[in-house]
């Protein structure tokens, strides 16, 4: 019914006692996510909301609770260290919500990630949700519905927009993955597309990209070769001026690379239906599916 996370996901929260960590952990618990542990160095032995044990290290949290996914809310200056700690403890899925991590830090994290089996999602992302089963991240739960459409996105609010368009037309989602807006990050568009292509409970998916980098082009090339499911896409930033960082650190056209036009061309070439306007993401996919 989903990819990566479901009812069996046992979640750790790194930075659980911080302001946003506390708020969003509560939201995830309210949604039904099994939050089994928290980590804040120096606060080991405390209990979060009278339910969740807090540990000093990820290693202890893993040994005591068997957590198999972590949500990182640690401030940007220390977040890379927290991600590496999660890798070291063997946490299968690491979801980094933190925004504003220095690029050099992420470069080192990615260089280290080839020696681990952990899957990294983010940073600077809304997280991942399998509607009705497990919400890990900062997305508003109520806009989602369980269903059979996947969503992959570099942008938080644009994901909500797409989900809303689907849900309000009566089409639920299998899983929605926010891969994040940073130039160097974990799971790519292509890797997420591969998961949805192989998932028997996903019928079709939407890929939401933005200017900067070449990930959308790489995903398009992969989809052209390997994916038979209907795919729709939208690329944000067609009107963005070159050389300016549009909010997301990764959303920048530099040296003539990463334009929306080049991405749209690659997507169309792969047989993907490209929405011309962000208000038509849902409708474009449904039309492409013939429903």
């Amino acid at each position, binding site marked *: 019914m989903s990819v990566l996370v479901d009812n069996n996901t046992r979640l750790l929260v790194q930075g659980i006692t911080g302001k946003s960590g506390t708020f969003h952990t509560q939201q995830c618990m309210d949604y039904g996510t099994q939050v089994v542990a928290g980590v804040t160095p120096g606060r080991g032995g405390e209990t979060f909301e009278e339910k969740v044990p807090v540990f000093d290290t990820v290693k202890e949290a893993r040994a005591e609770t068997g957590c198999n996914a972590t949500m990182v809310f640690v401030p940007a200056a220390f977040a890379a260290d927290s991600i590496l700690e999660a890798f070291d403890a063997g946490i299968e899925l690491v979801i980094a919500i933190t925004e504003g991590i*220095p690029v050099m830090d992420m470069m080192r994290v990615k260089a280290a990630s080839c020696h681990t089996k952990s899957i990294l999602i983010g940073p600077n992302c809304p997280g991942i949700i399998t509607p009705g089963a497990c919400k890990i991240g900062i997305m508003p739960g109520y806009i989602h519905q369980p269903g059979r459409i996947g969503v992959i996105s570099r942008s938080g609010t644009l994901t*909500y927009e797409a989900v809303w368009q689907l849900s309000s037309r009566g089409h639920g989602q299998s899983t929605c993955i926010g891969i994040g807006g940073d130039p160097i990050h974990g799971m790519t568009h292509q890797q997420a597309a591969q998961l949805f292509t192989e998932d028997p409970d996903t019928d079709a998916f939407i890929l939401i990209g933005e200017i900067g980098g070449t990930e959308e082009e790489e995903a398009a090339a992969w989809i052209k070769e390997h994916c038979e499911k209907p795919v729709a896409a939208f690329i944000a930033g067609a*009107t963005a001026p070159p050389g300016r960082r549009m909010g997301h650190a990764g959303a920048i056209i530099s040296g003539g690379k990463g334009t929306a036009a080049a991405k749209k061309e690659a997507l169309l070439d792969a047989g993907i239906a490209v929405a011309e306007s962000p208000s038509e993401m849902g409708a474009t996919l449904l039309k492409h599916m013939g429903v």
Partner: protein
Amino acid sequence: MNIHEYQAKALFEQFGVATPRGTAASTKEEALEAARGLNAGQVVVKAQVHAGGRGKGTFKNGFQGGVHLADSPEAAQDLAEKMLGQVLVTHQTGEEGKLVRQVLIAESVDIAKEYYFAILMDRESERPSIIASSEGGVDIEEVAASQPEKIFKEAIHPALGLQAYQARKIASQLGFTGKQIRAASSLFLAMYDLFISCDCSMVEVNPLVLTTGGDVLALDAKFNFDDNALFRHPDIAAMRDPAEEDPREVEASKFDLNYIGLDGNIGCMVNGAGLAMSTMDIIKHCGGDPANFLDVGGGATEDQVKEAFRILLGDSKVEAILVNIFGGIMQCDVIAQGIINAAKTVDLNIPLIVRLEGTNVEQGRALLNESGLALITADDLGDAARKAVEATRAA
């Protein structure tokens, strides 16, 4: 973030990157003193603005060129006087040009050959990459297109860093020989140290020069720093020059608002970077022109919304405002209250189009309805953009 050439020179000196000696001057007296201090036969006087094409630029007072040679300290003072306080227009500044508040006085060098050398963070390979060319002092994009064989690339391992053999290899590819190879490769290694230590996203040396005396020097450089890493480099953050930036952007940054000024007439206020970009896109799609990119973020307060409004209304080109909020974490009633508060304190005399969706949307809409504000509500993103474009046409 960008810095001035004289600041780049200071960083070069700090990291041992060979560069001609020089000092910044903000008055003609300082210029005279700086030129005397160099004790060089000939000096170069360069206008300090954040824009390329200075040498070929024109001052609004008619003086030609923002880069000149001077044969004596007095001549340097004379040139500085002609540039300081004047507005320089280059192909990168736009018609309005940039005010020159400082000049760089540097020793002049006799150039035998010019090269191009850059280090950048390559997002595809997720590691730093060196790009160098034996064709320097020109537009590197043109060289890449017309003579790709003259461009050399070297990927650097994130953990190992630039190795000495790699630096020698690049030096050799560029055509350096004999003692020049050691001079060039030590410059490259020092430059890499600077790149990593200062959290740069790009350092571009154009030109890198070989002097007739056989020295290899970084003559001019363009730096980009990773804004996310400035917190650990207060010395570099202090090099920021707000006078070089769009005043609207400087104002917005005071309130932690993510704002980028554009040239259109529809002011935008949106939450989330992707949605903010898409809002610009859909305005264009409907035949309109956005005045800005503005992401108020996921957790904006009423005050931030109010300040955002003030900045949008302070832009004389803005003829309508489009508010597009998809409340996730951001609650629609908070946004609505911010809009209402802003409308009380500022004179809202242009059409305001509001599209709210998401968390607490009913409370948000009710607040706006009860406020008596003359605003245009929209059902969805497409509807909002169409109404905003119509409003500017009617204006």
